[in-house]
């Protein structure tokens, strides 16, 4: 499929999802759907760096929180509409991704991974000690209950859901476009063999920086509406464990080689967790994700997508 066709299809699917959700018109569905879509964005973003280039980012929560806190900051300093906040968050998180990559990507991959862990803790400490955005106590973000659109009252959660839906569509279209492009080929050579990539004329450092910037920016964008979703933001909830572990586990479980893996992983794990949060505790949630992650990397290293592909190949021969 041509990239332009794919983008068109993505838009149609996103519109269909929103339309169906409208028909059901259940507030809980929008709340839950928002979280699942947020994971779609995070997983897709993680995979651009992790799956395509082979660099592990443990600091997804940090980029997500940067987006969330840039919204809190602007909410206090100079309130702006959410689509603008998303762009600002994307810019800030992208710059952090770029800086982070510039500082550590000349080293071996494992150091980059460790540095991303460090980044999360440094940023959390900074935010915890920064009173303007609420410090350790957290900050309230007052949001209206509904939004007036051409005379119609739309519940605010639907508005947020729509934003996240668009963002998910953008993330997936971006990932898919990269995959089939010169950039995508370059990313694959980095994952396979950086020395050989350089010898073939691939500017590996520049490409890695593009990947960290893009991936970080998308994660930040996913975080931007978060304070409005919760109505209250604390460092512990923005830097929560589940973001880091989910954004790794979802692509790993779905499959890292193409855009569809993170999508499948995010939908699957996201929905399971929404169900589990209602029925059991959230700690069990994270435990399930952790166990699945370990099980999958050991048993099905190419994720669900790889597993299905293998089955199909075997079926044919």
């Amino acid at each position: 499929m041509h990239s332009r066709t794919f983008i068109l299809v993505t838009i149609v699917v996103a519109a269909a999802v929103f339309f169906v959700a409208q028909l059901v018109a259940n507030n809980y569905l929008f709340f839950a759907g928002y979280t699942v879509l947020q994971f779609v964005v995070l997983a897709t973003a993680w995979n651009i760096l992790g799956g395509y280039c082979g660099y592990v980012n443990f600091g997804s929560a940090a980029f997500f929180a940067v987006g969330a806190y840039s919204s809190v900051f602007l909410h206090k300093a100079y309130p702006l509409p959410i689509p603008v906040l998303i762009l600002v968050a994307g810019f800030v998180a992208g710059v952090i991704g770029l800086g982070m990559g510039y500082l550590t990507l000349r080293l071996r991959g494992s150091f980059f991974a460790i540095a991303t862990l460090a980044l999360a803790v440094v940023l959390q400490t900074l935010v915890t000690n920064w009173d303007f955005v609420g410090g350790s106590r957290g900050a309230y973000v007052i949001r209206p209950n509904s939004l007036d659109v051409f005379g119609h009252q739309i519940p605010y959660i639907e508005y947020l859901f729509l934003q996240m839906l668009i963002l998910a569509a953008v993330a997936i279209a971006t990932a898919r476009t990269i995959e089939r492009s010169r950039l995508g080929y370059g990313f694959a050579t980095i994952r396979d063999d950086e020395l050989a990539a350089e010898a073939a004329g691939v500017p590996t450092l520049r490409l890695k920086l593009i990947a960290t910037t893009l991936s970080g920016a998308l994660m930040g964008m996913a975080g931007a509406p978060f304070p409005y979703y919760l109505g209250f933001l604390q460092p512990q909830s923005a830097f929560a464990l589940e973001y880091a572990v989910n954004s790794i586990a979802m692509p790993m479980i779905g499959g890292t080689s193409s855009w569809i893996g993170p999508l499948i992983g995010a939908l699957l794990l996201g929905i399971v967790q929404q169900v589990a949060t209602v029925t059991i505790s959230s700690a069990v949630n994270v435990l399930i994700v952790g166990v699945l992650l370990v099980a999958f990397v050991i048993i099905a290293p190419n994720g669900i997508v790889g597993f299905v592909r293998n089955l199909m190949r075997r079926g044919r021969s």
Partner: protein
Amino acid sequence: MDFPIELLINAIIAGVLLGGFYIAVTVGVSISFGMLDIVNIAHPAFIILGSYIAYIMNSRLGVDPVLVGLLMLPVFYALGAAVYQVYYVSFEKRGQEALRGLAFFFGILFITEVGLILVFGVDYRYAEAPYIGPAIRFAFVDLPYRMLIPCVLSLLLLASLQVFLSRTYVGRAIKAVAQDQQALTLMAANPIAIKRIAFGISIATAALAGAFLVIIQPVEPSVGREYIGRVFAIYVLGGLGSLPGTVIGAMLLGVVESITATFYGPSWAPAVSFGFLLLTLAFRPAGILGR
């Protein structure tokens, strides 16, 4: 302004004692990452596991935490050897350690942490022993036993590892595996077996470090995450796996953290180690002793 020199000296000495304990925390990673090239980011989780075992044995049976740490050595060694076997078969052999191996340890980190939360909750747990509480006092300098004992024992642990690595056949084989796997096959040793032993030892040190930790401070499951930064900051500062470098890195970080906590408040302490780590990685990736 009257500079509180006594406070500073106390902070430095507390930092040195803390740094001593950090040696025990880091030495395992110096072996696994530095010598075996296994990026075990779950190492702190094993330490916390050790702390909880020491806590249970201490609170239920009244066993001294240090003794529990020693008794746990073989158990943790076996645990480490088993983890390495899984890691080898699933990742090293397939050449997938970079992405999936890291994710594997990340998963273990979470499973351990969340498992502990589910069993014990998020309350702080502490151990009891006659030496937790009292201190030696010289003039205005305090030397609490709960810091002094882990520090001394950590130094002992490091010294014995150093002797083991340089004097014994297996120890030399471990050092050789760090240099060149082929050289090792010439020594008629199986590199996989040697790596399994070495990884077992690295996890065994976590048992002791865990026991020390619960003597020094109350623990709760997520404390482990703070230690990821410490461990790798020290490891990088110390020059990536050299044992003497580890001592210097540990002491340095201990002192800087202690001064930060004394003068700026303990909420900044976690950022110190991670900030150190980021700066070292960015500007001096070969460590402070590196060329």
